[in-house]
């Protein structure tokens, strides 16, 4: 079970949160101008990183606020949390084979 430090409420159990997937995916400003490939890339393609991954969570059964987290997807360590709209913190890249 993950222990997730909500930036507003402090550390809480995973069951209080809902998952929002990869963070920092920006909706294209002019979708109608995109090629099919670029649209598919926005819509479907993911980084699915093994290592440090930037993702969104919402504290559904708490403050109900969204935030970003940097988590190692292999070890499940939550390395940082930061507010929506903030730039991700500088973290050491972790590479696993």
């Amino acid at each position: 079970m993950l222990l997730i430090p909500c930036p507003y409420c402090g550390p809480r159990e995973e069951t209080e949160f809902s998952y929002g997937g990869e963070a920092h995916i920006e909706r294209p400003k002019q979708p109608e101008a995109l090629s099919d490939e670029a649209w598919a890339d926005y819509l479907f393609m993911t980084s699915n990183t093994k290592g440090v991954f930037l993702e969104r969570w919402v504290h559904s059964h708490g403050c109900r606020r969204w935030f970003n987290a940097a988590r190692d997807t292999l070890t499940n360590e939550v390395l940082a949390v930061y507010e929506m709209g903030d730039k991700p913190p500088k973290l050491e890249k972790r590479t696993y084979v």
Partner: protein
Amino acid sequence: MKSRYSIFSLLRNALSYHENWPEAWRSPEPKPSYDVVIIGGGGHGLATAYYLAKEHGITNVAVIERGWLGGGNTGRNTTIVRSNYLWDESAHLYEHSLKLWEGLTRELNYNVMFSQRGVMNLAHSQHDLRELGRRIAANRLNGVDSEFLTPRQVKQFCPIIDLREGGRYPVLGASLQRRGGTARHDAIAWGYARAADALGVDIIQECPVEGFRIEKGRVRAVETAKGTIEAGKVALAVAGHSSVLAELAGFRLPIVCHPLQALVSEPVKPVIDCVVMSNAVHAYISQSDKGDLVIGAGVDRYIGYSQSGGLPVTEETLAAICELFPLFRRMRMMRCWGGTVDTCPDASPIVSKTPVEGMYINGGWGTGGFKSTPGSGWVYAHTIAHDEPHPLNAAFKLDRFTTGYLIDEHGAAAVAH
């Protein structure tokens, strides 16, 4: 040619206390180059190697594996085999696989312990019931055996299920695929490995991939921990790591990896002789030949490569199992573990060419990987040998996410998640 396994070889080796069995496959050092290098020594990769050699006469093949054979998702699933998928494309692919399963023990001369004990999918609500009716009709149109069971017939088929009224998960009916069942997970990897090895395929374990040499958009070689291996073609069969290797090769996939958990109980006498799946409550159960109950759970929602999951998921699953089978309430669970499932947005696999010339991908099987092992290897071998897909996997292309031709099996395919 290797010695065949038979009752006579068993007796002969019994006389020497089973100390003289020949090795099932060689462990060669990699050659400098191969026609085809398959990455991933799980069931899919080994099946692909076998069918490349047997069906297409391509024997200068290496299977390279980061750990040991069948140590990934092949050894971590709940071994259910069925083909009752909703959409035509999936039904044809999985049915082809099921037909291969039916002859596999004989073909490989290796007992894969395929047991067609029947797979039952329960309906707990009116909505489930309608979905079920639709799927049964679709299955029958595609020549997949599928039948409807009333609650009374459910009770006859699986007497230990609790159908007293008032439960949290009332059973309103079920679909039954009698040809479905279970198989031995390790045996499928070992059987294909032995058969492929006999046809000349090199199987190289403990050989992680570190990168690719790609020149002018075409893959030339694979960089591994055991040196550079030149390759005419490179085939990825690394479900659970597809995105990682795709990144090394410079393209992106629509795949996300989730932990998917399973658990086994203490062994008991035979008590349940079929597979019961409940789509709505994320639980499925069967009993292994050893006697332990094999129970599968839903996926953890977050992306994860940890090969383990959270207790809330198993708790929900076991709550449902206890509700349906109250006699299991005091069973002790011995082990639980997780696999890493590749999941596509449409819950269908990708067996396809890639943007890199000479490189192929087989992944994104989600929760359907084990049952599809023979069929997956068969169509993948065809795709690699001919540089174009077989009609059975033509729809499972990577570019379906660009064209919009999705095969949406989410919730449609009797899958539990």
